[in-house]
């Protein structure tokens, strides 16, 4: 029970990676606040799983790109649980299109959810962390941010922005006992990758030295490590969990 009574928020925590991260914290004794934007069906399923595994949990329907939604969500967590120890900025969307066909709305939406959402959630929680001189902020990024990927100008820009944000915020928070890091999952078996066609899947597998897609639990393990005491001297870093892809 490494995270007994730690207060954790995981954004986008009802499916795929976010869900695995939320449940992993719950199994380690943490109190878990999970946000989701629209998928009520998955939320209800995750709600049941958290009921059976979490000491305490809260589920929020919140758009992380909306300041009022974020402030309401974090405000509720602080009212109920007093403070936040760990924030995992996982909520993210893709709207892949080649730049020539990438309209302003698809650009804005991806940047708003992924990058602005990370900013808003971090900003809303840091006061509580500063007050206790302890905190962990872990941002989920993507290899697309580092190597680029055709059709992902918006997504890679948003994730690249999060890496820069991570590094700058880590310097602001270092002296205050708060670490800020990023986890960069490679190709992981999630609903996002299940929709890929067979040809794309095969080409991805050829690129991964370990010869398999990662599991959500592989990523959750890295997130829990960065949130743990073992990682107290690590900040401003990007930890790749990708089977050797990058």
């Amino acid at each position, binding site marked *: 029970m490494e995270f007994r009574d730690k207060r954790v928020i995981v954004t986008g925590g009802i499916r795929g990676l976010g869900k695995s991260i939320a449940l992993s914290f719950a199994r380690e004794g943490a109190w878990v606040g999970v946000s989701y934007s629209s998928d009520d069906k998955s939320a209800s399923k995750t709600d049941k799983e958290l009921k059976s595994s979490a000491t305490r949990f809260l589920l929020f329907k919140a758009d992380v790109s909306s300041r009022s939604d974020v402030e309401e969500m974090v405000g509720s967590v602080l009212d109920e649980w007093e403070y936040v120890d760990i924030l995992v900025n996982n909520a993210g969307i893709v709207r892949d299109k080649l730049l020539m066909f990438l309209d302003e709305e698809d650009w804005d939406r991806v940047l708003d959810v992924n990058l602005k959402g990370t900013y808003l959630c971090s900003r809303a929680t840091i*006061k509580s962390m*500063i*007050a206790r001189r302890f905190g962990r902020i872990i941002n989920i990024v993507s290899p697309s941010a580092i190597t680029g990927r055709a059709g992902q100008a918006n997504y890679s820009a948003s994730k690249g922005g999060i890496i820069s944000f991570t590094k700058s915020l880590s310097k602001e928070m270092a002296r205050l006992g708060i670490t800020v890091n990023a986890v960069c999952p490679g190709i992981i078996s999630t609903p996002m990758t299940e929709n890929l066609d067979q040809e794309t899947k095969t080409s991805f597998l050829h690129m991964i030295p370990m010869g398999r897609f990662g599991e959500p639990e592989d990523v959750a393990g890295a997130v829990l490590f960065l949130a743990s005491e073992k990682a107290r001297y690590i900040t401003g870093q990007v930890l790749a969990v990708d089977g050797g892809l990058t």
Partner: protein
Amino acid sequence: MEEIVNNSEVLCEFLKKMIIDTLKLEDITVEEIESRTPLFRKGLGLDSIDALELVVAIEKIFDVIIEDEEVGKRAFASIKALAKFIRKKYKQRK
């Protein structure tokens, strides 16, 4: 808290102690801090990261929010300036 805020001298002494406690300053005492001494750089030698902790402490203790950096710069000019700022904002919040 009302009694402290309403008495300028008491509030200044309270703030000096709050700064020492919040920032865990070990090499300075309340008596050594002049109310007119600048808090930053050449004065007490605090920096913008120290200010973050003070902003959080002031919000927690006085329920007074320092909403942006410019306001903070003016408020943190000295203990006296900070006391004046807190007294004004404390009354406005009621």
